[in-house]
């Protein structure tokens, strides 16, 4: 059972990572708007623009 002495603190570490990830998601405003992302995937352009074209587009 001595493995528990390693596993329990490890669990706490994973918990910290999970909380950190959640804070990051909140800061990225992933929870602010729960409606548009579902529609957005239908709206946004599907065609993939090659990088060199993309650059030209942002310049004008």
């Amino acid at each position, binding site marked *: 059972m001595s493995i528990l002495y390693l596993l*329990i603190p490890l669990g706490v570490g994973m918990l910290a990572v999970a909380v950190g990830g959640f804070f990051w998601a909140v800061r990225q405003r992933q929870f602010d708007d729960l409606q548009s992302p579902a529609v957005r995937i239908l709206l946004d352009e599907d065609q993939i623009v090659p990088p060199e074209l993309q650059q030209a587009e942002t310049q004008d």
Partner: protein
Amino acid sequence: MSEPCFHCGAALTPNFRHAVQFGGQRRPVCCGGCEAAANLILSQGLERYYEFRAPSPPGFVLQVREWQAFDREAALRRYTHLRADGSREVSLRIGGLHCAACGWLIESSVGRAAGVHEIHLEPASARAELRYDPRQISLSELLSRIHTLGYDPEPLSFTGVAPDWSVQRRDMLRRLGVAAFGMMAVMTYAISLYAGAMAGMTPDLEQLLRLVSLVVSTPVVLYAAQPFFAGAWRGLRARILGMDLPVALSIGLAYTWSAIATLRGTGSVYFDSAVMFTFFLLLGRFIELTLRARAGRENDALARLLPDAAVRVREAGTERVLPEELCVGDRVRVFAGERIPADGEIVNGQSELDESLLTGEAAPRSRGKGGAVIAGTLNLSSVLELQVTRVGQDSTLAAIRRLLVQARAARPRLASSADRVAAWFVAAVLVLSIAAGAWWWHADPARAFPIALAVLVVTCPCALSLATPAALAAASARLARGGILVARGRALENLVRADYVVFDKTGTLTVGEPRIARVQPLSGRADEAGCLEIAAALERHSGHPIARAFANLSSPIALTDVTVAASRGLEGHLGASCYRIGREEYVRAGCKSIETPQCASLGGSAVVLGDRQGLLAAFTLTDPLKSDAHGTIAQLRALGLRPVIASGDNASSVQGVAARLEVSTAHAALSAEDKLALLRSFQQAGHRVLMVGDGVNDAPVLAAADVSVAVGGGTDLAKVSADLILLGDRLAPLTLAVNTARRTLRVIRQNIAWAVLYNAAAVPLALGGWLQPWMAAVGMSASSLLVVLNAMRLLRAAPPTLELVSAPVNTKATLRAPA
């Protein structure tokens, strides 16, 4: 009327034959504004907007706006925030933003503009946040770009009074997340500890689990539960025993006791109770916050009455300034179609002013040199030059605002009485817990602390404290979907008690716009249809409200040399003939021959058409009743409310309306003071009065009523003063409001009954020592969640909703060009 406008969905304007190309087809649009917006959207390749958008809500009219003044230093300081890297940030409220596709459209179109670093939209709250580079694009360009797409952007000043829900929500979410993760972990350890206590566990491992519990609970208690501690401390400082005090005490005591026990290595720990309690209470608060955020999102409408910019006349020339920059004595030029930026006196010019926003009076007033004008009123017909007489706190707008505040403060404060009851309850809880602890200390010292804690937790009056606000918030959200905004929480409580409903007439029961009721040809030279054609052609050149009566008539006639005689009428030429329309005297003055038929029967609201030979026709205009006025009044009567009409209009028209609506009590020709006196007389007779109005001269009356409702199609100012605001022009949502208020009160009663019943059952168990603190935490949390969930039932649609949605509504969203 065959096909609606492709862009805005409104009915097409006759004589406007423009269209846009979409999907290889010609699609008609209703006005130049929609054409421009549609072309802009299509030219940017954003046609998918039209596939995914939701139909726009009724009543949104895009105003012509003026953006240049937003580039002035004062405006930038007020609305934007300069970042260290030279970019600026601005928050906007976007009028007309109603669906996810709208948000996508603005984001794609504006986000593409050079100089826009970041744009973030929240369709739920109609907010946008923008970060841009002021060297590449100006604020005014950004705003006009959004405006061109057909939305109405409103920069929010950084000192805005409205609470930012999304910031609060994010903060609450983080706390909730910490509590949730913490609870999951601590519960696992607690179960292991309970299992270990029964099955045997090495002391090392037990101590490790307790230490880990301490480590995980610490952020939960210190961070996640912090709002409860802050609330309790605020209450203590204000000498109030608030609802947060027992919560803070329970969490704090359970945690401290357990921490000490853990560090000393003896005694039992209650981390699980503390953490679980925190999580469930936070969850309740979070749901409540979401409900409240959904419920109330109004802006201060008073400030929006002022124009965006004023033209100041200096000796050196003119300059555009913000209305706030004006000083007494400044000269200001106001063009036709613009709002007056400050109270002043006319020094040059003669024009018609629409003061309906301030006075509720629909007919425009004619003002000439020396006449006083009020900030916020609309200059209808020609250019005026003013000398500013009052600004800021001295202005009429500010005075009205103060009046409203006073009227509001004079109301009975139901809310504070609820707080007083709660304070006694909290005091009782504390005394009970201490007594229980003291008694058990003598009987069995080892059990004294857990029992005192259980009593404290189980009797926490959270269910009681959530019972009312949760139900009110849910009801507000429900009503908002039905077309009513609840501006003040107390409104619903008072709405249930109301037994009198007092209606203003113009704009409330009636449409507020003139319509042609009767055409009376006065000579054999032209028939009814011919007269209407000429009249429509003439009135097309007028910005006068009466002209709206003719606006939906099409006419093939094109007149030349049309001249406007302010407040009298119009004159226009067709070939050799010259037509006049307007007041009878004016039209008669244009007649060459004296041979004109007498028409004494023409009322004051008649408009006359004539040519050089004499009078041609008389048009009788009326203000028609709203289509749902009769039905709504009948339903309200069925609900037990007695309808009364109180109007400032003349007796004959008020009697006519009352007769058609089958309302027996109607008072005519009332001033604002008279209306107030009438209201007071009802209240003194022991009645609770629901007042429905729209004008600002009603505002003090609205504020004095037990519950007030403003009709949103009316004015911005009245919106600020009312308890409830009808978002559209329809009256039918009033019935929904009364019904929802009654359901809400029922839910509140159920909630309070449940809270009392629960406490009555749980307290003896806790006192007797049959409840562990964790059981108390579960019971107590379950009880408050039950209360919140019961309140959420109010969100569910009641039968009337379907009818509300499918009913035809006037969805006119057009760019109105200045006259």
